């Protein structure tokens, strides 16, 4: 019998027959619970099973498709999630709305295993609310047999030679980022005049673009529908690895986007002790390494590195070298400017 029925008067009514023998959820004999809200494929099943076996805590995992969904859920105050994994800019919003707990560092044995490069970021200074979990980049994936020379610049996305073979992420901030980086500016530029001028460049680029797509870009590149594709590294790395050298992924020399997804404890969660046990669990180098090996995203646990499969650890699309990382920048919450960018993006998409 699933415990959700207990907290559900309607379910209880409907399933009174089979639920009648159950005790209240607060009964001491009840196994401990942990409700995890996470991106798909972020937590291998066998790792989760080990956590349950070791701690005796029963986990329930739900998945979401966007950071905005996390925000809406946590704002309602009635979502029972003990663990959530938002991305950088959303984490900042969650903190400012008091939707996530401040962490007690004395209960986070293993915190020192984390890679300092991903700590103390602007979205959560001193990591008072979060621990970094996985990270990645945005760049260009391309078909090496269809381009004249290896691509190393965002300029390729604006190169008339690739007319009709270019894919752009259907994401305002990422698209604006390509032009801003080409012009040597920050991804987080807020000057309206600059942003308007960037929008003009993107409007002109539209004639070269085959499609705007944020969900299927690696597939379209693999299938040969496009030859130069703007995209995030996770799927690109997968496509590159299975292409036998035909495809490549690069973070352009002008610099790309860095993203970091962090683990937080929502204030509306009610199983704080179990949540801390989970945090300590994923901070363990062996566990962190198994997670990376299972999900093929770069983890933020430095002590785990030697235990990660060599093919993954040495894949520059997953673990880019330091000089590439130095060129990358986090997307920040731009506050009121977000509206202007959304407006300009709509204009770009609607332009003919």
């Amino acid at each position, binding site marked *: 019998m699933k415990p959700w029925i207990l907290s559900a008067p309607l379910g209880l009514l409907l399933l009174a027959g089979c639920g009648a023998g159950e005790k209240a959820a607060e009964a001491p004999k009840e196994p401990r619970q942990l409700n995890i809200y996470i991106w798909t494929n972020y937590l291998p099943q066998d790792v989760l099973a080990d956590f349950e076996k070791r701690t005796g805590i029963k986990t329930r995992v739900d998945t*979401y498709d966007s950071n905005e969904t996390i925000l809406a859920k946590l704002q309602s105050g009635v979502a029972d*999630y003990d663990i959530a994994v938002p991305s950088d800019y959303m984490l900042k919003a969650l903190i400012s709305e008091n939707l996530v707990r401040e962490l007690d560092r004395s209960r986070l044995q293993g915190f020192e295993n984390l890679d300092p490069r991903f700590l103390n970021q602007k979205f959560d200074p001193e990591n008072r609310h979060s621990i970094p979990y996985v990270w990645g980049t945005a760049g260009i994936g391309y078909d090496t047999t269809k381009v004249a020379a290896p691509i190393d610049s965002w300029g390729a996305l604006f190169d008339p030679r690739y007319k009709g073979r270019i894919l752009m992420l259907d994401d305002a901030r990422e698209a604006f980022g390509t032009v801003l980086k080409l012009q040597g500016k920050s991804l987080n530029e807020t000057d309206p005049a600059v942003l308007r001028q960037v929008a003009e460049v993107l409007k002109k680029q539209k004639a070269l673009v085959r499609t705007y797509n944020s969900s299927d870009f690696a597939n379209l590149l693999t299938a040969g529908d496009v030859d130069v594709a703007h995209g995030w590294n996770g799927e690109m790395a997968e496509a590159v690895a299975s292409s036998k050298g035909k495809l490549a992924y690069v973070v352009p020399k002008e610099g790309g986007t860095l993203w970091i997804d962090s683990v937080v404890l929502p204030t509306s969660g009610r199983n704080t002790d179990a949540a801390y046990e989970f945090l300590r669990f994923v901070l363990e180098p062996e566990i962190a390494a198994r997670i990376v090996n299972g999900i093929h995203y770069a983890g933020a646990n430095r002590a785990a590195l030697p235990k990660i499969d060599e093919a993954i650890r040495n894949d520059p699309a997953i673990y880019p070298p330091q000089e590439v990382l130095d060129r990358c920048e986090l997307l920040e919450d731009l506050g009121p400017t977000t509206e202007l960018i959304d407006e300009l993006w709509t204009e770009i998409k609607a332009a003919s």
Partner: protein
Amino acid sequence: MNGPVSAGRWSRRVLAVHTAFIYLFLWVPIGVLAVFSFNTGRQTAVWRGFTLDWYHRLLANEALLAAVRNSLLVAALTTLLATVIGTLAALALRRPETPGRGGTLALLLLPMVIPEVVLGAALLTLFGALGLRLSLTTVVIAHVVFSVSYVTLVVRARLAGLDPALEEAARDLGAGPFETFRRVTLPLIFPGVAASALLVFTLSIDDYVVTSFVAGVGSTTLPLHVYSMLRVGVTPEVNAVSTLLLAGTIVLIVAAQRLMRVSSSEGDRT
């Protein structure tokens, strides 16, 4: 001389081609979906060879299977509740003595007209205000909210075509209100009730927008799960599960048609 004949043949031919295209248009995407569930490649776009691997993985993918179970459970409960409530509402709205009929009908149809996003956000706010923890229950409640309108509308249309004399005759012959309903009204409106139940099941099982707002712990449905996979790429496991659901639906529809044929031929004999 044979102008009209050949014109007839021509139009028939054009119609046949037209029909073929319509069926292709409807079925090719579904066929592609099913075919790619047997594809060796992880990516959905290129055919690499035949395998049953995705079906094996599907059976081991607890998250995806749980999502399917959630979807089926929610759809079944929603269908049951919405069909009963919607049918009762339609019956009540038919009686002239029901107070505030016009207003009630307008309110009942409101969930059909408001954008789903608004409905989802409103329900989430309501649940938050009530302190009702998000779970499968809140998902079922939300689905019932937007489904009842469809049931009421479909059953109302069926009731409008019902001859009141039949029910009066039943009462004249000594049947009580409940017996009249059970033996006269319900059998007559049953096709409408069944059709609306199917409609609700379909609406519920593929609803994404409202569900994404009100789903809580342990209530990720199949649409939510598939959308959440987009970030890392949809694997052919989703094709596999869709193909299985499709096959299940076809079996159910064929079974239902058989049953209806049997019961209607029995009805003819009596």
